[in-house]
């Protein structure tokens, strides 16, 4: 090394440090080999799925079909975001489908039937979710009840509650001309705004990245190059612009999907840049170590289960808008498993301690692509269930193999 005085973190001569683009690629390959796959498998899988469906039916890739798909992604995607929270702790919530059904029912019962103002009805649904989540966490904290069991009984109890609330009619229609239903079916972001928003990630990446680099240099730590940073920010924005341009050839970007992405970004920040997110990963990795470090483990469980059920209720609210009704069918069928499968397919580990908010986004796109593609081929839901089940199995196998590889490469 020509540098006479190595930075604090580069003093150990045994470690090879990536330099330049070639080094970065090499480091990436090494990480993948060690089982630190990140979102690589899901992106590869998505490419395969999209190629196959486009070959079978070119309509699949048409802008308006993709826009429809994004509408459909948003409801289950929000539920899946909650699942990521509990999976990071190594826990599970099997009742998110029923919870979303209750959320959607509350909108119908309170807003349509009882005439409660819409914002209050939505708030009530979210509070119901938070309450249910707190119950699961309390059962776990006080009685040591595994979340697998408590949420399984919750699945039945909430389904019963949904049927009870709906009463004999079994279905409540939301008014078609309402903003609520428009939001779920029609509302599209203005094109200039959608392009302007593409620039936001670029600006944020550049500003934060340059600040961090300057701070690291000032603290005598190694820092990345500004050129590489600009390249990454530029490529991100170009990619986004291309996607938005293509969607704008059709109807454009649904506001409901924008809401979902915004929630993903907020959760990503919370997971990666806050003390709460750090504590979540610590508890998921080694709960006893987290407790001894002074973390209030019980409170972490409460926060995760509360968030999960609240997101499920919100997903139900959105699905009532999407379907323009609150019915006995809401939240039943494959909603539950799709939400859980999406998080796992997207790369959040079932073993706890690892996960990312983006896995909900990527995973739900995979699942909706399969559902949408098969519908275009006029294939029945029987085949859809089998294929989605197969993809989930593959995702879990990849997760397990990657975990074994991480253990043997010391990256657990």
């Amino acid at each position, binding site marked *: 090394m020509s540098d006479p005085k190595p930075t604090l973190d580069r003093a150990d001569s045994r470690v090879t440090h990536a330099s330049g683009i070639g080094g970065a690629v090499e480091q990436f390959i090494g990480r993948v080999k060690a089982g630190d796959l990140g979102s690589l498998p899901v992106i590869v899988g998505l490419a395969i799925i999209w190629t196959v469906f486009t070959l079978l039916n070119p309509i699949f890739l048409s802008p308006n079909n993709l826009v429809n798909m994004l509408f459909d992604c948003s409801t289950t995607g929000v539920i899946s975001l909650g699942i990521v929270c509990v999976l990071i702790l190594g826990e599970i919530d099997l009742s998110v489908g029923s919870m979303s059904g209750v959320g959607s029912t509350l909108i119908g019962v309170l807003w349509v039937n009882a005439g409660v103002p819409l914002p209050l009805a939505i708030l009530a649904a979210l509070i119901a979710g938070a309450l249910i989540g707190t119950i699961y966490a309390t059962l776990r904290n006080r009685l040591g009840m595994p979340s697998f069991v408590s949420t399984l009984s919750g699945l039945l109890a909430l389904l019963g509650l949904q049927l009870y609330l709906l009463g004999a009619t079994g279905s409540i229609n939301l008014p078609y001309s309402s903003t609520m239903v428009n939001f779920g079916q029609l509302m599209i972001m203005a094109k200039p705004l959608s392009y302007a928003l593409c620039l936001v990630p670029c600006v944020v990446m550049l500003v934060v990245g340059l600040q*961090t680099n300057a701070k690291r240099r000032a603290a005598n*730590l190694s820092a990345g190059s500004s050129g590489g940073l600009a390249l990454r920010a530029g490529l991100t924005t170009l990619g986004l612009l291309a996607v938005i341009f293509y969607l704008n050839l059709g109807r454009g970007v649904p506001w409901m999907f924008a809401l979902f992405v915004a929630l993903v970004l907020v959760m990503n920040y919370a997971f990666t840049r806050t003390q709460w997110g750090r504590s979540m990963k610590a508890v998921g*990795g080694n709960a006893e170590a987290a407790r001894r*470090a002074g973390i209030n483990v019980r409170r972490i469980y409460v926060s995760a289960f509360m968030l999960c059920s609240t997101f499920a209720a919100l997903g139900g609210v959105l699905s009532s808008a999407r379907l323009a009704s609150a019915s006995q069918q809401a939240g039943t069928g494959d909603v539950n498993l799709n939400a859980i499968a999406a998080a796992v397919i997207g790369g959040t580990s079932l073993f706890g*301690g690892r996960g990312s908010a983006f896995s909900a986004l990527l995973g739900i796109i995979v699942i909706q692509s399969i559902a949408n593609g098969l519908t275009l081929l006029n294939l029945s839901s029987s085949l859809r269930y089998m294929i989605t089940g197969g993809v989930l199995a593959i995702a879990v196998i990849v997760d397990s193999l990657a975990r074994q590889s991480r253990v043997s490469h*010391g990256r657990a």
Partner: protein
Amino acid sequence: MTERPTPKGELLLSLRGISKNFGAVSALTDIELDVHAGEVVALVGDNGAGKSTLVKVLAGVHQPTSGSISYRGRPVTLTSPSAALELGIATVFQDLALCENLDVVANIFLGQELSPLRLDEVSMEVRAWTLLNELAARIPSVREPIASLSGGQRQTVAIARSLLLNPQIIMLDEPTAALGVAQTAEVLNLVERVRDKGLGVIMISHNMADVRAVANRIVVLRLGRNNGVFTPEASNQELVGAITGATDNAVSRRESRMAEETK
């Protein structure tokens, strides 16, 4: 042997009649222990004597079944690890209690992160390197998961973490068991430095040479009970006798055999 009189520092920690039962097993019975500022107390005893259990009681991990603890003259109850940390009692556990999925910086700052709503990674990384360099640690990168480190490296990370909060008392449960020669010396130096700064240190070790090198007092536990307090000048035979509970035992027989053979 150097003269090392018990310092007259403030009485930091005082345990009276501490007992701890795990179901039918009495891991600790009627334990007494005092720790002064600027003093190293070595806690020795055979495997299963209750040393780790005592440390965990003081760290707030286990609640004692009975007995009282006072800290700087005030009676305290250590209901949780965070309560102990807040009082200024830091612990390096025998079973290290690190999160393998997190990197070194995240482990050192676990539960104590700087600026909780917008983590200050740069300051945390700098402080982590400073702590590790003070321990002369050989850690290749602080941004790798703990799972990639050797046992000794993990030990150093655990020790660095205990120093983070500038505690009043540090408890080290077999801190040198997994360490190499240079690292062991480094940890013993650290124990002396920490003591000279006026902190109280409780150190558990099976290595009598290490214990004699740094301890002001040697407290022996046997089968969960106090079994004598010794100075570092005490003979090996006295210590081993107290630890094993017999004057005629494998260690003393071996020593007398060696003595005869060398005659």
